[in-house]
């Protein structure tokens, strides 16, 4: 699709139609809805400008678009952290209320958001990029590496570091999850 758009720029709108909602959703999770519009829109403008640099050997444009979006999100690092912090505070009450269920192991993932958000605040920015591309964008670790322009080994160790923190947060919530 990108290759066609390369020869026929008109085609790039197909890339937009296919991925805009998804990219918007990813950015909205990280930065909230108000910043998502600008960042997602800008992602596609940059992608269009750079479409000739896209490696067409890869059949999907997804990792490439996520890479651009990640770089833009990085400009709003503080807003992102503020958001996780707010989520961790607002969800704390909920988590405490659900303590009995939590202990019984019946609480759904939603109730763990506060703890995870608090953990995300502590994860280093670069580690968080890989973690969220894998968890939220559902890229493979290799795709995340490619998206961020880092070696695959680096991405793996970043993911490993980040997951240690999220696992620790979850282990606090339910001792049986501990590994």
């Amino acid at each position: 699709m990108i290759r066609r758009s390369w020869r026929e720029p008109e085609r790039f709108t197909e890339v937009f139609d296919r991925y805009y909602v998804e990219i918007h959703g990813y950015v909205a999770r990280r930065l909230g809805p108000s910043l998502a519009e600008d960042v997602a829109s800008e992602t596609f403008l940059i992608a269009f400008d750079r479409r000739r640099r896209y490696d067409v050997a890869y059949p999907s444009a997804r990792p490439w678009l996520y890479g651009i979006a990640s770089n833009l999100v990085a400009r709003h690092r503080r807003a992102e952290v503020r958001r996780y912090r707010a989520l961790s505070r607002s969800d704390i009450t909920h988590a405490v209320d659900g303590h009995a269920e939590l202990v019984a192991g019946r609480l759904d993932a939603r109730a763990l958001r506060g703890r995870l958000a608090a953990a995300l605040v502590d994860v280093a920015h670069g580690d968080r990029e890989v973690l969220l591309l894998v968890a939220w964008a559902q890229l493979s670790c290799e795709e995340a590496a490619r998206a961020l322009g880092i070696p695959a080994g680096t991405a793996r160790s970043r993911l490993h570091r980040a997951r240690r923190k999220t696992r620790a947060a979850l282990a606090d919530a339910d001792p049986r999850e501990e590994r």
Partner: protein
Amino acid sequence: MNDLTILRDAWDAPEPPSPGEYTRARAALRTRMHPRRTRLPRLSPRLGAVGALALAIAIGLVVVQNLGGTGADGRPRSVVPGLPAVPVASAEVLERAAKAATSKPFTAPRDDQWIYLQDRITRSDGTIATQANWHRADGGGEAFMDEDGKLHVQSMEPPRDRPGRKVPVLDTYKGLTTLPTDPDALLRWAYAQDMENGNTSKDGVVYLLFNHVLSANMLPPELESAIFRAMKQIPGVTLQTVDIFGKPTYSLGFTDDWLREELLIDRQTYAYRGVRSTVVRNATIDPLKAGNSTGEVKKGSTLIAERLATGIVDTPGQRG
């Protein structure tokens, strides 16, 4: 559930962007794409956005007339001197086009050579643009000339098959040479591809695929010939004579809802001449597909991509 799944599920699915946001973002992109152009209805020249179900037009032997009308004696009158105004069956025209494709001299490009294509894009609003593009036969690079005459070259690693990921055959000249050149086998291949284009029927999608392959490439003659022979078997494809490029030209068309796509073939040489897209009725479609805020497309709007030149050259920028 592992920690990654929990992390995913802990957040609610994000709210989709509002239609307003979507339209604004798309409009911003289109402005970037056409910085000098005013608002236009979106016409998809090729496999682009097409509307609902294709109109089912009868297959087969469509009678073709010269555009000269009828003479005083009641017999068809030719507008082109020397061209007999006899009805021509579409099967026959396509057979001739197929034969013409294989009878012209052709030297296949080497893997490291570049295929040069030049097209003139004419829109019914009066905008005209000439596009010059090069792509390396093995997919190892692409180039284009911008409006200021500056050449932009991008060399790329020639795509290779990887485990579980084959390079799509349509992406390179090299890949296209692997397609069947037996028309029936080619048609079976095309129908077996997992492709879709909105609500377009399978026949319409196969038509658009061939239309696109012909218009975006220089093809090995055996393949071009096989495509012409395969196309005549697609239900709904019609053959007409249309007045374009200042002379009667064969048009191999397919109408899908509000949009008609045509492949244009020279009446003398049976060579590929270009493609045309025409809005056949006023329609209000998805504004996102129309590329404007109202979603209106106007009957009679057209986009023509006329092939001006092709060549095989050693370096991008050369014109053969």
